[in-house]
């Protein structure tokens, strides 16, 4: 079993490598192998090499964002024990977006670190709100209630975001393009401030893998096995929220990656979160890279923002999950 899992993990790493290579090679122009190799060695002499060099930050950002969103989705599905949990569907990304837009409109934010903290705060508030709403009433936080609470909150947050932006023509253009969700225009300067937050979120999430395994047995069993259920949930959720908030701060809200990837990981690796979480991170990075490449190739010479591509990949998967389950399980 472990050998098979290790093999799948290697396959995922290989896939990630291929996706990163494609992301470096494809764009408005296709770069040859020679240019690719020389550019990675640091040369920027030809057009092709310059193109590759300019694609490096974007590729790094797509891989980081994909890994963070995939991991966050896996953790959220574990914490809520809900197959439909995803930072986009639960409104967490929308919360981060609103917080950033409010901060931009009122105080103008010039420090990158502050910007990310604000996004994480917004993501956290949205996550807690959605979960609280869905837990109220009989039956606890069922997938239907969570999805509806998320959809309703997202609609309200989107309206509020528009309300904040509308009177401010000066930031409207910036916000409009950021709200679609994309990794284009990445630079090393924009990626660097987010790294510590991603590292923190990664550590918290991976450390909670064992706790998520216990939570999966049910609250009562986990408690009787000596787990502090609420402390475990809080820690895992903090990790996921940090990852979502930091990603949204840089890329804008990107949906559905966190939904799709953990299901794939579960198909390949079974139910153990110590395997699901790392696999989700790897697969998320590969998925976002490939979605970004697809967006660049499909609309050449313009490009399709990656948030749009992931919605088109993710929504059918969502429908597939809904159809596969008996309605009682929803």
């Amino acid at each position: 079993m472990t050998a098979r899992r290790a093999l799948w993990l290697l396959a995922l790493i290989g896939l990630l490598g291929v996706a990163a290579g494609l992301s470096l090679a494809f764009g408005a122009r296709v770069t040859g192998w020679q240019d690719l190799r020389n550019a990675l060695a640091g040369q920027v002499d030809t057009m092709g090499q310059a193109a590759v060099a300019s694609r490096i930050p974007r590729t790094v950002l797509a891989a980081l964002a994909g890994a963070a969103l995939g991991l966050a989705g896996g953790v959220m599905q574990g914490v809520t024990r809900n197959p439909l949990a995803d930072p986009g569907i639960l409104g967490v990304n929308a919360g981060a977006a609103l917080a950033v837009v409010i901060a931009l409109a009122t105080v103008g934010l010039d420090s990158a670190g502050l910007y990310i903290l604000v996004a994480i705060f917004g993501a956290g508030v949205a996550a807690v709100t959605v979960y609280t709403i869905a837990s109220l009433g009989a039956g606890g936080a069922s997938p239907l209630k969570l999805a509806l609470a998320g959809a309703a909150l997202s609609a309200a947050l989107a309206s509020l975001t528009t309300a904040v932006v509308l009177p401010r023509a000066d930031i409207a253009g910036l916000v409009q393009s950021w709200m679609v969700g994309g990794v284009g225009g990445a630079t090393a300067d924009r990626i660097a401030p987010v790294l510590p937050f991603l590292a923190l979120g990664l550590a918290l999430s991976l450390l909670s893998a064992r706790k998520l395994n216990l939570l999966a047995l049910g609250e009562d069993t986990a408690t009787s096995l000596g787990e502090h259920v609420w402390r475990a949930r809080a820690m895992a959720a903090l990790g996921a929220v940090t990852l979502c908030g930091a990603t949204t701060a840089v890329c804008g809200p990107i949906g559905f990656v966190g939904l799709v990837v953990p299901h794939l990981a579960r198909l390949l690796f079974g139910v153990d979160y110590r395997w699901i979480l790392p696999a989700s991170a790897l697969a998320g990075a590969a998925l976002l890279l490939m979605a970004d490449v697809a967006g660049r190739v499909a609309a050449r010479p313009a490009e399709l923002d990656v948030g749009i591509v992931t919605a088109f990949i993710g929504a059918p998967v969502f429908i597939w999950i809904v159809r596969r389950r008996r309605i009682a399980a929803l």
Partner: protein
Amino acid sequence: MIALTHIRRRDARRRHIALSLLGALTLGAALLTLSVGQTVTPLPRVIAALTGTAPDFTVSVLRLPRAVLGALAGMCFGMGGVAFQTLLRNPLASPDIIGISAGASAAAVFCIVVLGLSGAAVSLVAVGAGLGVALLIYALSWRDGVAGARLILVGIAVAAMLQSLVAYLLTQAPSWSLQEALRWMTGSLNGARLAQAAPLGTALALFGGALLAIRRDLETLRMGEDMAAGLGVRTGRTRLVTVCAAVGLVAFATAAAGPIAFVAFLSGPIAARLLRRGGSLLIPAALTGAALVLIADFAGQVLLPARYPVRIVTGVLGAPYPVLFIIRDNRTGGSL
């Protein structure tokens, strides 16, 4: 027997009171829209302007189209929404939640931005697309019959996909068509023209009339498919007419005013709460929708610090309502 007659009479009285209350509210909101804006026009002058005795530019050119279009769109949204909710026997199955409004929006933006169409052609395509999306959602959620929860979840996913399509199309829009295309996304009565009222009014009369003609069958269908068939309702035909008419109403209203968030969803339950029980909800919901749109638009125009399109107001104010539903755990709820 006497008790039953008594209850019936009381319900009928309650219905009359609620209906006149809603009518008065709608009328009041319309008059408010006509008389208050950047400047305040006293009521007698509004009436004089409307009857044509003393023409007033502000009232009849700036404010009248807004009031008329808002009222008509609200009626269409309210009636279309409650028809869906009644047919699917679930208050959450409203066209704005399950993606039908998003389908109409996406098709319209596609026509404007990519094909360069405008006017009536766009509305027709929007209606077609709304119907197509309704069919698609129904087919995708079919598994030994359609369960309400599955249909709603599938609808949420389809809506998300369509909204991202709209977002993409808007980034592609040349600047001259962006304004028109944006209206399909934001939902606003800004730029309302009296010429838009004619097609919307026709749609309301046509589709609303069709719904009213089968309202008894629709009510019977609420008791369940088998029961309705047993009572002599041609269930297939009733469903078909209801879906077509409701999609038509929602799509035409979307064409005129954009997808105004949550109006279709809210009108039915509010009307149901006002009426308590008995009778068709179609007309009360239509009045509620009109009042909602007019009041929200008024709030966005006059009461708030900046001038906001109506959808922003309904979006923010309407969101707590689905939350209330979730808290009440009315997820498979048989009635509204």
